[in-house]
């Protein structure tokens, strides 16, 4: 079994190195193929491990070698394959494999084809470390690793120029990449602090040791650790207020968005909360905060998606919103439901992004849905895929999203947090609306693209085939809910609805469904026939507020970026040069000047010299007299 663990882990690494070998040479299709095969191998290994864990019910724990040991700190490279990590592994490798294959087609014309695969596989490797590690430090390796890969991939088209925020809200790929990296770093600091808290109170960073020692720790320590770790999670999962990077990250190639910024990396934060559930379940206040924040983000992101015109950004907002759902679940203690939604979401959201990628490919990288419409003729399969994914996202039975999201909303009700429940329900309606607004504007109605001289065409066959597993899973995954619960609750705390909720579950489901259907209907009525622009609405304050993401990016620029640059400039020019350095030079200058001043006594005139001698003797006499008086 250890071999399988290592295969699952290192096959992506091998793939990355292999692609890197050709990183600077022109496109070589076999690089993509080899990479995909290696990823598939990793997926197979993960699946077999999953089966193993499923059958035996026991995890596998391997320790490869020591990493850091200093003082009393010992961090090994250790990996654990248990119910939670194996779920993540399977999801990650599955989506990755699909995305790899997809990329062979999508990146067809890109001159940096090989480099792309190198980065992409490196990302998968980092993600595998993240989910498989048996300690917090190892998790942090993966955590930072995915951050870097995300930086590389968002900035993949680094040669693009910076433009104004009005022209492109993300300014440029390289700008977006840096923003993502730096914002994540802010959260990583929190995560590091969390690690430190745990280490100094427990003496280890191994999960099992830490979790076993938690009951002995004081409440304040637990709270501090939980808050710090959650700050880390907020960065990676783009929770408010560290959310702006996620939409800007859409500057990366679409497969990247599908893999990293929808299915896997952004869910790392949720994974962390699930992983550290013993800690979070002992800190109810923090958990409640997580749930509240998640709920808020779910609503907040959905509201911005309502009016956005950018195909990928809409999906990005929906990702954000769904992450909020997951946090809500995790915060309310329904860890397995969060994990379930995570997996289901990975499938349909990746599918949605890949579909969007097809559209982009067809539309020559045009992303404005107002410029599309009626694409269903040219792109039947893509329409189907995206439709399925959107239905899943909107939570229409029997698609996957229905089961997972419904469970979350039900949890909110079950916990008695009715306020959260209401918001989540409303958000579900909004989700359905913007999903279908996007689908209808893209595929139905008048063919607005013609005005721009674009001739769309369907994606390559093999790409469409490669996408099919996701589509299938998006449809059927929901039915595995029971099995899944049974599987993961061997490790995670089980969560059951109370009797009361159970009774009401049908009705609650219906309410949610009503909102979802309502959303779809609304979207149908407004957009199915084509785009009818409402100037009055578009000029209203609310619309502008939403379209500009509540002006948060502008706010950040005004209160953080610009002042920081100004302050830095001031520190350099005014403080460092004019105070610190000037003081040093001032001392030197003072000495030099006093040299100039005192050399004046050296007049060259003998008479003055003799006078100096006399002055000197008088000076000595004066000292003599003074000290004689005191003696």
């Amino acid at each position, binding site marked *: 079994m250890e071999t399988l663990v290592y295969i699952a882990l290192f096959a992506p690494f091998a793939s990355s190195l292999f692609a890197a070998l050709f990183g600077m040479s022109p496109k070589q299709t076999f690089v993509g193929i080899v990479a995909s095969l290696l990823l598939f191998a990793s997926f197979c290994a993960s699946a077999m491990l999953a089966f193993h864990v499923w059958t035996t019910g026991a995890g596998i724990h391997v320790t490869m070698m020591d990493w850091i040991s200093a003082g009393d700190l010992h961090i090994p490279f250790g990996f654990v394959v248990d119910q939670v990590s194996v779920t993540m592994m399977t999801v990650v490798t599955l989506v990755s494999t699909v995305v790899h294959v997809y990329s062979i087609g999508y990146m067809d014309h890109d001159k940096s084809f090989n480099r792309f695969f190198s980065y992409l596989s490196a990302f998968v490797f980092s993600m595998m470390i993240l989910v498989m590690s048996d300690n917090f430090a190892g998790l942090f390796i993966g955590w930072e690793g995915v951050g870097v890969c995300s930086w590389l991939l968002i900035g993949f088209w680094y040669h693009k120029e910076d433009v104004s925020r009005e022209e492109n809200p993300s300014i440029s790929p390289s700008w977006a990449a840096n923003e993502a990296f730096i914002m994540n770093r802010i959260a990583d600091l929190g995560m590091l602090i969390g690690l430190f808290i745990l280490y100094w109170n427990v003496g280890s960073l191994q999960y099992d040791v830490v979790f076993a020692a938690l009951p002995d720790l004081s409440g304040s320590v637990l709270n501090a650790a939980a808050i710090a770790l959650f700050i880390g999670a907020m960065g990676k999962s783009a929770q408010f207020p560290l959310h702006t990077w996620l939409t800007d990250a859409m500057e990366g190639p679409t497969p990247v968005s599908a893999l990293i910024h929808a299915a896997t990396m952004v869910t790392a934060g949720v994974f962390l909360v699930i992983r550290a559930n013993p800690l979070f379940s002992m800190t109810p206040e923090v958990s409640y905060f997580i749930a509240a924040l998640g709920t808020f983000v779910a609503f907040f992101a959905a509201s911005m998606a309502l009016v956005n015109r950018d195909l990928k950004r809409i999906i990005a907002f929906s990702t954000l919103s769904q992450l909020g759902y997951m946090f809500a679940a995790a915060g309310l203690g329904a860890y397995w439901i969060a994990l379930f939604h995570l997996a289901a979401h990975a499938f349909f959201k990746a599918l949605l992004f890949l579909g969007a990628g097809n559209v982009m490919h067809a539309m020559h990288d045009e992303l404005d849905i107002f410029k599309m419409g009626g694409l269903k003729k040219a792109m039947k399969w893509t329409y189907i895929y995206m439709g399925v994914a959107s239905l899943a996202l909107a939570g229409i039975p029997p698609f996957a999203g229905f089961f997972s999201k419904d469970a979350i909303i039900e949890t909110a009700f079950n916990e008695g947090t009715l306020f959260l429940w209401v918001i989540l329900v409303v958000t579900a309606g909004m989700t359905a609306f913007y999903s279908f607004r996007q689908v209808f504007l893209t595929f139905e109605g008048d063919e607005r693209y013609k005005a721009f001289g674009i001739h769309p065409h369907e994606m390559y066959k093999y790409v469409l085939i490669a996408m099919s597993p996701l589509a299938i899973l998006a449809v059927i995954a929901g039915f595995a809910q029971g099995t899944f619960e049974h599987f993961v609750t061997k490790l995670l705390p089980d969560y059951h609805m109370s009797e009361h909720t159970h009774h009401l579950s049908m009705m609650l489901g219906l309410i949610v469904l009503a909102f979802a259907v309502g959303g779809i209907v609304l979207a149908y009525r407004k957009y199915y026939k084509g785009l009818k622009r409402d100037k009055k609405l578009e000029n209203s304050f609310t619309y502008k507020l939403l379209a500009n993401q509540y002006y948060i990016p502008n706010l950040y620029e005004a209160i953080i970026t610009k002042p920081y640059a100004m302050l830095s400039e001031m520190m350099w020019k005014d403080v460092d040069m004019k105070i610190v350095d000037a003081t040093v030079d001032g001392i030197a200058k003072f000495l030099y000047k006093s040299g100039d001043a005192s050399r004046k006594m050296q007049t060259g*005139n003998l008479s003055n010299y*003799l006078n100096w001698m006399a002055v000197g003797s008088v000076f000595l006499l004066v000292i003599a007299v003074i000290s004689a008086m005191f003696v």
Partner: protein
Amino acid sequence: MIGLTHYLVISALIFSIGLMGVLRRRNLLMLFFATEVMLNAVNIAFAAISHYYNDLTGQMFAFFIIAIAASEVAVGLGILIVLYKKHGSLDLDDLANMKG
């Protein structure tokens, strides 16, 4: 009666006069004279103290001072002569080639 104190006061006065001469005079020759005056003031003191203690050492010292003063004048005048040849002046204020 003239005692030791009187001699010492005279000696101190002459020493001060010599010192003032050294400080105020602008001609090198006068400067040399002033230093001689100072040395002679010391001689007075030595002679007087020597007499007071009835000890010959002081007078010995005085003789040595006289001898040294003489050789000082010899060397000093020699230097002054070459200086005068070169500069054509013995004024102190002309003698400030090197400064700073």
